[in-house]
């Protein structure tokens, strides 16, 4: 693992990222992104570096407004202009890339297609024959536990089921990197834990390299091999924490003392950032109120 040396003193923190390893599948190398110019410019992401190894599950965690979604859009190729390099197999990302499959925070199933047609959609774009399309889509529908719901429309499914359809649709085209932006943000805690189990199971079954963007501590520790803790604006790597919990994991892991220790430790870092974020937001609101009152 890339940060092994830095973590030799314990499985805790890496303050600064070392140079990316050659065998990394995804390399984030000194990535920055600024919106606007002049005094009103906002630096969303600043000089971020880390990498993701093949088959590894990495989570990026940070308070709201720390630039997580900007980072997600850069890695997914939706934000084409940025400073630094996002490399996949030594090629720089400057647009959507076939190797990256994206799962979005918002509900993204197509309401006019049933579950089977939703999942088969990427294969339809690749002109895969109908029977092969059906077979491959069926495999991923089963993988996310939705067998029997193939003919249902998204409006007939729960939020958690719709998100599983989105995950199956992303996986069906065989991306080398699965990139997820808070996919369970809109779900309740119990569904979130159970879907976490499903994600862990899929990741273990497919050895899927995964990068999860989240602000949920429990989710990050439950699922990840490593967690990149981000600072509040501008988003920088505060430290990288190795999660040394045994695999295969289930949601039962949340009751273990080691899990609690990781959560407490990361929260120690996050609290400082979240507090800063909240104070800045309150100061901004107060300034706006003052301006409005004239």
């Amino acid at each position, binding site marked *: 693992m890339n940060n092994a040396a830095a973590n030799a003193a314990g499985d805790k923190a890496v303050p600064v990222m070392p140079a990316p390893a050659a065998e990394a599948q995804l390399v984030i190398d000194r990535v920055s992104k600024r919106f606007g110019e002049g005094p009103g410019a906002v630096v969303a992401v600043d000089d971020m570096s880390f990498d993701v190894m093949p088959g590894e599950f990495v989570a990026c965690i940070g308070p709201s407004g720390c630039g997580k979604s900007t980072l997600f859009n850069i890695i997914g190729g*939706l934000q084409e202009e940025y400073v630094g390099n996002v490399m996949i197999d030594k090629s720089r990302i400057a647009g959507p890339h076939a190797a990256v499959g994206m799962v979005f925070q918002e509900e993204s199933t197509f*309401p006019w297609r049933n579950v089977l047609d939703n999942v088969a959609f990427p294969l339809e774009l690749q002109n895969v024959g109908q029977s092969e399309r059906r077979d491959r889509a069926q495999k991923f529908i089963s993988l996310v536990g939705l067998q029997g719901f193939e003919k249902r429309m998204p409006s007939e499914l729960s939020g958690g089921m719709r998100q599983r359809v989105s995950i199956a649709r992303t996986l069906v085209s065989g991306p080398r990197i699965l990139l997820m932006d808070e996919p369970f943000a809109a779900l309740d805690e119990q569904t979130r834990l159970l879907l976490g189990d499903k994600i862990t199971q899929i990741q273990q079954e497919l050895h899927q390299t995964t990068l999860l963007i989240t602000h949920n501590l429990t989710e990050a520790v439950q699922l990840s091999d490593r967690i990149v803790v981000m600072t509040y604006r501008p988003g920088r790597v505060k430290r990288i924490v190795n999660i040394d919990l045994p695999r295969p994991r289930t949601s039962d892991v949340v009751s273990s003392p080691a899990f609690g220790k990781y959560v407490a430790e990361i929260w120690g870092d996050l609290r400082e950032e979240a507090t800063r974020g909240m104070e800045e937001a309150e100061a901004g609101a107060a300034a706006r109120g003052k301006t409005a009152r004239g």
Partner: protein
Amino acid sequence: MADAGAGRSRWAAPALGAGSVIAIFAALEILLKTGIVNRFIVPYPSAVLLSLERIIVEENVLGRVGETAFEMFFSCIAVILIGVPIGTALYRYRALRRAVEDWVAALAAAPLVLAFPLFLVLFGRSSLTIIVMSVITGLAPIIIKTTEGLAGVRPVLINVGKSLKMGDSQMFWKILIPAALPVIFSGIRLSWTFVLISVVGIEFLINLGGLGQLINDLAERYDLPGTYAAILFVVGVSVCFFMILERVETWLRPNP
């Protein structure tokens, strides 16, 4: 028991609607009989209903329905073929949208029917005049709703398309159009309503063609029951037209 209750409630609303119409007709009949309403201005509802058979048999109603349907058909198709691409262009090119959006909205409110002398000069006293005027009348809602529907597609669906490296054409046909279809359909319904009003109205105004001309003929003969019977017939045809349209829409429209 529950099924019987559901069955009753399903029929209750239409029965109430039909009952209300019958009650209004009965009340009008009484008001006319008692002289409260002048029978030289408003005919007896019973006489209007009895005239229905007469105008159907004697006034070649089926032929006239055919003529109106012909004009409607071409106008409705043309409205879609012209309106949807214009709406799409306004969505695609923001500068164009900013330039003409207000004009299109104004077109929806403009009483174009008053311009019929101009169209008579341009196209003569023919079905073409009726079709061209009706198409122009029906264009605004479909243009506005097409633009609105495409602009209202959730950004996440577009991002899904981008992440799958879809080209512009694929994005348009496989994501934008299906996602915008419910709103476009509401534009089609509005446009076709405008087209129907326009077709019958202009037929009436220039005394040409189908059902509009029939109303004009009967009014000029001062056949009041016949005139109202013809109006009633047009209303019936419109109701049938929109019931069929609703069915087609349900069939084509993706589930929400």
